């Protein structure tokens, strides 16, 4: 896309400066930032991943040894398993609930105030959200625990048991992201022409059929976007776990990024940590391609 291609208009250059120099002047700050904090670290990270380095002594080149270790490190794959478990708890439920909420918003809500309240959780830092739920689920004083104790369900362990910790964190993150994802679905629904619905109504389709047969297929590009970004985000979960469980109990919530973080900043194994981060990157690229392929990315059935 180059806008109006009929006329090619290049803004003129100030006296004495060649036009290419003007362009470079405009991008100079961004280029410095890009080279220093994106390009260089990406290359440097790759380089570090082939070394054994504790930050204090000089890095020692060890070839592919870190990568071989990643593949045989049971703890890494355990953390990968924990992450996948988290993603499986988080994504399907979150997507379904967001879609339902979006439908409800589409039919019932025009008020900005309601939309504002629904996205409030998304605007809060993961640290804050983690803190709030840690308090509400405090085994002794948490209000939700106290209320649960009064019901037949009884007290639950939530963060403090290996079985419940990951589902708990997943549900908290659903609480945080549901309104925002619903807003994205809702925005997508607004772009579906109302005539489509009217036609369905004339043909006597029920609301349910309309949703399944019209809304959902037409919404596919939004769904792909929401799911791909959610999965990529979920695979990188760190903040909330650092605040709530810090990997415990018994490593049941030690997700990949936390394990990488521990290797880098607690054990000072920079080479190994960067090697793992590269493997995570590769896995994410693979998942993205797979997911867009399966969900047939950008084609909406509207065309």
């Amino acid at each position: 896309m180059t806008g109006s291609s009929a006329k090619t208009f290049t803004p003129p250059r100030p006296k004495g400066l060649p036009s290419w120099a003007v362009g470079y002047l405009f991008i100079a700050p961004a280029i410095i930032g890009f080279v220093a904090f994106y390009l260089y670290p990406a290359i440097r990270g790759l380089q570090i991943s082939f070394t054994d380095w504790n930050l204090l002594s000089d890095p020692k080149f060890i070839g592919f040894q870190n990568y071989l270790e990643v593949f045989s490190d049971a703890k890494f794959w355990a953390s990968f398993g924990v992450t996948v478990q988290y993603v499986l708890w988080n994504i399907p439920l979150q997507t379904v609930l967001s879609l339902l909420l979006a439908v409800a918003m589409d039919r019932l809500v025009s008020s900005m105030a309601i939309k504002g309240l629904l996205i409030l959780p998304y605007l809060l830092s993961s640290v804050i959200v983690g803190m709030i739920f840690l308090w509400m689920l405090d085994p002794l004083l948490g209000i939700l625990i106290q209320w649960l104790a009064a019901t037949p369900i009884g007290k639950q362990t939530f963060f403090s048991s290996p079985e419940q910790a990951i589902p708990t964190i997943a549900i908290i993150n659903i609480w945080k992201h549901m309104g925002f994802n619903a807003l994205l679905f809702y925005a997508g629904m607004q772009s579906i022409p109302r005539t489509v619905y009217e036609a369905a109504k004339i043909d006597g389709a029920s609301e349910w059929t309309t949703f399944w047969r019209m809304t959902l297929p037409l919404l596919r590009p939004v769904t792909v976007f929401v799911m791909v970004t959610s999965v990529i985000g979920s695979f990188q979960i760190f903040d909330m776990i650092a605040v709530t469980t810090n990997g415990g109990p018994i490593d049941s919530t030690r997700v990949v990024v936390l394990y990488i973080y521990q290797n880098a900043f607690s054990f000072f194994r920079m080479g190994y940590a960067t090697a793992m981060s590269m493997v995570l990157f590769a896995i994410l690229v693979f998942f993205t391609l797979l997911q867009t392929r399966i969900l047939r990315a950008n084609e909406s059935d509207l065309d």
Partner: protein
Amino acid sequence: MTSTATVSSPIRRKPPIPIGRVLAFIALALIVLISVFPIWIVLKTALTSNSALFAEAGQLFPSQPTLINFQRVLGFLSQAEAQKAGGSGSSISFFAAMINSAIFTALIVFFQTFFSAMAAYAFARLKFPGRDAIFTMFLIALMIPGIVLFIPNFITIKNLGLLDSMGGMVAPFVLMSPFAVFFLRQFFLSLPRETEEAAFLDGANPFVIFWRITLPMSQGPLVTLAILTAIGSWNEFFWPFLIAKNESTFTLPVALQIFKTQTPQGSPDWTGLMAGTFVAVIPIFILLLVMGRRVVESLQFSGAK
């Protein structure tokens, strides 16, 4: 539109009580309640005195609301007074953290938006060798996960001697963000070129055109971008957590995490922690109150990229 529907339905009758609709309304009301409820618990806890915390744990309202927790975590009480009020002896001042968070956010929002706008303008309007290749590299950078960059960036900042400084905390963010450049370039491409051409004929140079014409015409997207960046920076945790090592540099999320772990008495100082949490939420409230519509639209837009 209504007329088509009426005509098409064979029998005109009063619609039955729409049970589905009522249920949907109830569900929606419930979700709104669930979205807001935890924030209320934060405020309620922050307003509860430490001595009443145990007795009122299951209550929805504080019996005797007090501001003492805010006073002590913001550093308005002496150490002795704070401890008497039930402080854990933790000395973090959330007031300093709030100032740090405000500076951190303001620096990033202002400089990142401005420098990204300059680059976006060049990518949209100017011609120079390597333009498209450079832009493509920016797009690729959008996909790299944070953790991949954070470790080498940490080493860079450490080598520059910028650990534990505001400079080190904002450095990776102030000069550009690939998303901001991409977002603004798309917008600049959609702007009509006529005004710029007219200015050119009047002898204005690109810097003047950018500053006097393009930027003022782009207020909407710039505000959208600034809102998204402000929320992201205010909430940023990982990077400041790596760089900030003591109270003079802590941002609010970092201060909250450190405050939580400083628990000489075993369990966290919940009333203090919730007062600090509420302080961190206030700007978000203000943002929603003052420009709620803008925020909602910005977030919708962030999905439309």
